[in-house]
């Protein structure tokens, strides 16, 4: 695995660091307290490549708690609400786009 320090990081807008939680695989986001949250709304937003790199490096250090952290795009609207920036992230944040065979 390439260390975040060596990766080329390019971000085009507001972004978050996301990963999956090790013990159960659930989607998590880096929060502003240097921890993880399962709610996108509580994710820390970065806006520059340097900020993103710093947060990714810090996230990657938690190999026990989180798997495969990466930078994901988000959209932040005028009242500060955070929305996933693409379909993949939308599905990760909100679940499958189909009905599950057994309703939850």
């Amino acid at each position, binding site marked *: *695995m390439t260390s975040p320090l060596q990766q080329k990081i390019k971000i085009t807008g507001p972004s978050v660091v996301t990963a*999956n939680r*090790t*013990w*159960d*695989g*659930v*989607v998590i986001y880096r929060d502003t307290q240097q921890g993880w949250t399962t709610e996108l709304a509580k994710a820390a937003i970065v806006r520059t490549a340097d900020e993103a790199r710093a947060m990714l490096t810090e996230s990657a250090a938690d*190999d*026990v708690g989180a*798997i*495969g952290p990466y930078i994901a795009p988000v959209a932040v609207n005028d009242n500060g609400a955070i929305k996933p920036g*693409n*379909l*993949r992230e939308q*599905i*990760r944040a909100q*679940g*499958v*786009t*189909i009905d*599950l*065979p*057994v309703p*939850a």
Partner: protein
Amino acid sequence: MYAYDEIDRTLINERVSEFRDQVKRRLSGELTEDEFKMLRLMNGVYLQLHAYMFRVAIPYGTLSSAQLRKMAHVARRYDRGYGHFTTRQNIQFNWIKLADLPDALEDLAEVGIHAMQTSGNCTRNVTTDQWAGVAPGEVEDPRIWAELLRQYSTLHPEFSFLPRKFKFAITASDHDRAAIKVHDIGLRIHKNAAGETGFEVLVGGGLGRTPFIGKLIKPFVHGRDILSYVESILRVYNQYGRRDNIYKARIKILVHELGIEKFAAEVEEEWIAMRDTALTLDDEVVEDIRSRFTYPHYKTLSDTPDELKSASADPHFEAWRKNSVAPHKVPGYGIVTLSLKPIGGPPGDATADQMDAIADLAEKYSFGEIRVGHEQNLALPHVAKRDLPALWKALDKIGVATPNVNLVTDIIACPGLDYCSLANTRSIPIAQELTHRFANHDTANLIGRLHINISGCINACGHHHVGHIGILGVEKNGEEYYQITIGGRADEHAVVGTLIGPAVPYAEVADVIEDIVEAYLALRQRPDELFVEAVTRLGVEPFKERVYATR
């Protein structure tokens, strides 16, 4: 059924305890994710978009009722109440927690089920014809050899860290239901002039980013030599397969780059040096494995029982019988396919309740045996024809009697972007929309045999290359687009489909497929000229014209 003995059960239990230790070390931080990843993959554990995904092997597609009930139990207890049958005789659970996996494995081990080598760069689940042992005209039951290969390849000390994954498929019928030509090694059982069992060996087939049809490496390898011959192939691959580029690491690339003659010569040289070793299978050893496959005590029954005659008045029953019941080698019996492709449903999914019900029905009507095929459907392999009407009612009640087997709505699809971390686009919603478009079974029957295969990315888990119509999802500027190929097939005439033109957006895929099907109906010479035959005769042009003329 193959009955595991104490030796097999011990190994499975040892593997469960090893994995429990590995998970413990991962959760405590003793193992890094980089170190753990290959270990979990070798036990079928992936990380997907929302959760871990757990792939459990169904060796040669044969399950007992007790085993299927245990799958239902795992789905209910550790997952979200359903499982997904894949194209390689596996079942996947999509929502499992890493911390729960050792317990789930332990539960499965009680019935001889495991997840060994359902992923990783090792030999994967050895697959075969889902009608093995019951198909009329079969040379012999290929599962005996699949089991020998399963044992041979399980925790192999030399070949557990190959350049890339390695898949075997075996058939013993003229009609290939196991897709052997698109496997790393494809084996076709046949007899030599002396009446001895052996294998035609194909190598280097596969789909993915660079599809290849398997090439003939040896027309006849005697059964006693099959393990040493396979070991020679694997050894050449292990040493010379590319490890510099994951997309060029499959054996198909090595075979392609060396050329089949050169590759075959390397294998032959290796084989000559080691063929007379402990790998030689004595008749006695083969017979021992054979003796642990038990077959039902079939009764002498009428092929045209009264129950069937009276039920034939019901057009719904007749439609299902004609579509889903295949001839059995024993008169009076049939092979019943259970469609896991309901209109509007995700292809290949079954709920825990359905699994339990199917397990019960298998006990009542199929000697407690269930089969799983690469088309993502199930089968009951030994159903007395007189029981068909009663069975049909029960299957219909639980939603697995859609009379669409091999028809346009019997779609193979990967999980796609709804679940998969590799996917670029969704697959399931495309399949669902298509089943709605062709929901009328009379129309589907009129169209005839037509396989639509959908993959959500170039890795081709949905086998799009070999669908009569193949749909491949690609991402373009953040939008989901789909490339359409036609003319592919996965059987004994396996061929990779041809692209008809530029990719189309998500919303237009179903329209395009309808156009292609309409073009076929207008162009076919006679009602029994299959879609794929019409494409062979006409080429892609007329279909392309129809699709792109107005787009």
